């Protein structure tokens, strides 16, 4: 009996609604017979396996609240995933996604979405993505976004937004509408300026985080950043900066080149035929 089957049988026996199948060498859900009949499951963790496909039957697990698929080889998610009525936390980090399925934004109670370390960009998001009103944390680090759609402003409950190591050349001013945002990670992109609206947010309090290193900032921002994040925000809130920002936007040339080398990312490996 495989390690996976053993773990599955054990969980069934003790009626454990939280199923841990981490690092069990699983290639396919076919190695987990009966899993989709275990309707009592609230958490399913399949990190560090070699799964390529998520079957549509995943939607049978109607009590699923937490689904963790970190570090597999998933290239796409089934459309049916958006019908999981109780899914609150979805972690598909470190996979090979280059798009999200149609209708994904219909997930009714999704709170935490981790898409770290995939191959996603602004064209990978389905039309209703920003309908995910319940979202409080969105992890998009290590992807390929050059632009963040202005609809980001619709995610009113967002408290955490991670865009570390993408290819962003701009942050939309609508980010200033995310009044509950207290963590913003935009380090290692191609950003030169930030919209003054970001000054509306509380990103420098004792309960806030703003990470913005490794960007080709305009000199005044880079100078303030040397002294500290709070100085950057103070500066962004000033009239001087507003003037500089407007002039910069109207006169700026081509965006800075991409500098992140992503060729060695394991998410880039493509399945053969």
């Amino acid at each position, binding site marked *: 009996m495989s390690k996976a089957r053993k773990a599955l049988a054990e969980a069934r026996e003790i009626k454990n609604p*939280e199923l*841990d199948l*981490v*690092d069990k060498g699983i290639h396919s859900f076919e190695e987990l017979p009966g899993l989709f009949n275990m309707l009592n499951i609230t*958490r399913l*963790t399949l*990190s*560090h396996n070699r799964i390529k496909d998520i079957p549509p039957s995943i939607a049978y697990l109607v009590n699923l609240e*937490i689904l*963790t698929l*970190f*570090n597999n080889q998933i290239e796409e998610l089934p459309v049916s995933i958006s019908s999981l009525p109780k899914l*609150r*936390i979805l*972690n598909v*980090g470190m996979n090979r996604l280059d798009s999200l399925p149609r209708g994904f934004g219909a997930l009714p109670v999704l*709170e*935490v979405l*981790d898409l*770290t*370390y995939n191959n996603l960009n602004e064209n990978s998001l389905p039309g209703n993505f920003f309908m995910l009103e319940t979202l*409080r*944390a969105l*992890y998009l*680090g*290590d992807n390929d976004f050059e632009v963040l759609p202005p609809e980001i402003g619709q995610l009113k409950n967002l408290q*955490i937004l*991670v865009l*570390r*190591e993408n290819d962003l050349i701009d942050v939309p001013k609508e980010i200033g509408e995310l009044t*509950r945002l*207290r*963590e913003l*990670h935009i*380090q*290692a992109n191609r950003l030169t300026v930030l919209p003054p609206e970001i000054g509306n947010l509380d990103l420098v309090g*004792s*309960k*806030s*985080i703003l*990470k913005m*290193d*490794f960007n080709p900032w305009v000199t005044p921002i880079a100078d303030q950043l040397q002294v*500290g994040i709070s100085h950057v925000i103070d500066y962004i809130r000033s009239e001087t900066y507003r003037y500089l920002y407007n002039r910069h936007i109207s006169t700026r040339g081509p965006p800075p080149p991409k500098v992140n080398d992503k060729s*060695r*990312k*394991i998410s880039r490996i493509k399945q053969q035929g």
Partner: protein
Amino acid sequence: MNERKPDDSPLPPSELLSLDHSQLYMRRKLTSSDSNLSVYNFDLLSDENPHIPEDNAPLQGSFSSIVDTYNNLEYTPNSITVDMSQKTCSHCKDGFSNEKIVNTNGELWHTQCFVCAQCFRPFPEGIYYEFEGRKYCEHDFQVLFAPYCGKCGEFVIGRVIKAMNANWHPKCFCCEMCNKQLADYGFIRNQGRALCHDCNAQVKAVGLGKHVCHKCHGVIDEKPLRFRGEVYHAYHFNCTACGTELKSDAREVKSRPGLLANDVNELYCLRCHDKMGIPICGACRRPIEERVVTALGKHWHVEHFVCAKCEKPFLGHRHYEKKGLAYCETHYHQLFGNLCFVCNQVIQVDVFTALNKAWCVHHFACSICDQKLNQKTKFYECDEKPVCKKCNDKFPAEFKRRLRKAHQYTPQRAPV
């Protein structure tokens, strides 16, 4: 007393039977002294001026002539000797031979002549009615002359009430609101209805927007006392505690909260009510007679116990207290933090705080493999989320290199 009927037991001519009399119409029985008389007694009740008829009031209408006749009846002794040869039948004027003779009130009849003027049959049970000198059986008399009741439609024998353009049995002429018999009290016509004085006063008072006491039916001029769903004059009640007569400021106390029926409610004077310790709402300062919420060392109306931030009532939902104020879950978190990053619930007991976040004991775990962590477990950080050593080790080399680079570069944050 022996009772005989004219047709079955022959009567000696010498025995003249007596009749009782009345000043009014008589229903007669031919037999012995009849204690079973019915009387027609017309009361003419006028609506505008309620008329209380006196006993033996004179009759009205066409029947009065009969009354006259019988008002003059003489009492005839039971036994009297009469010379039969000179007597004639009151009906056919012939003399009598040796036969049964009927004697009524001094008049003599052949048995076959003593019959109903209408149907020519003997009077059943000897009962007859007399009108304008003729005698009728009960049936024909009623058909020809008796009034019928405007309510039940039956003939009215005995006392007749004439009112509202109709005749009534006394028991049938009633107040249309309270059903009290009106014959002896008079009545008032109110929009085509006959009402007693009280009900008429009520109708008038309600029309003027006044309350009517549920106990005495009188109009309440001052502020009414509400009690068990009705209104009353306050002076009908006494305080449950001290017994003083109540004023309209008395309080009705729902003595068993939550019960639907209010027939267990009690009344207290204002002073006793205040002394009883009825809880006072911490928000509106008014007594709480329904459900009481006790929190923050005070009592509250359910709808007045609200979040200090958004002012929405908790209505039984969980609230959180901080510095003497109560908050809803959302605002408690917004103001004071400590929502678990995983379950998003307020953390009640033990809190893990790290990486600008908080976790409840059950949910502090590696963000990648969901393995539980505790205070002693060493963990790594990635995007400000906890990562266990095993997971960190499994990161691809190029990713680890980048993480390391980022950590080296990040300026040390001043400890908060």
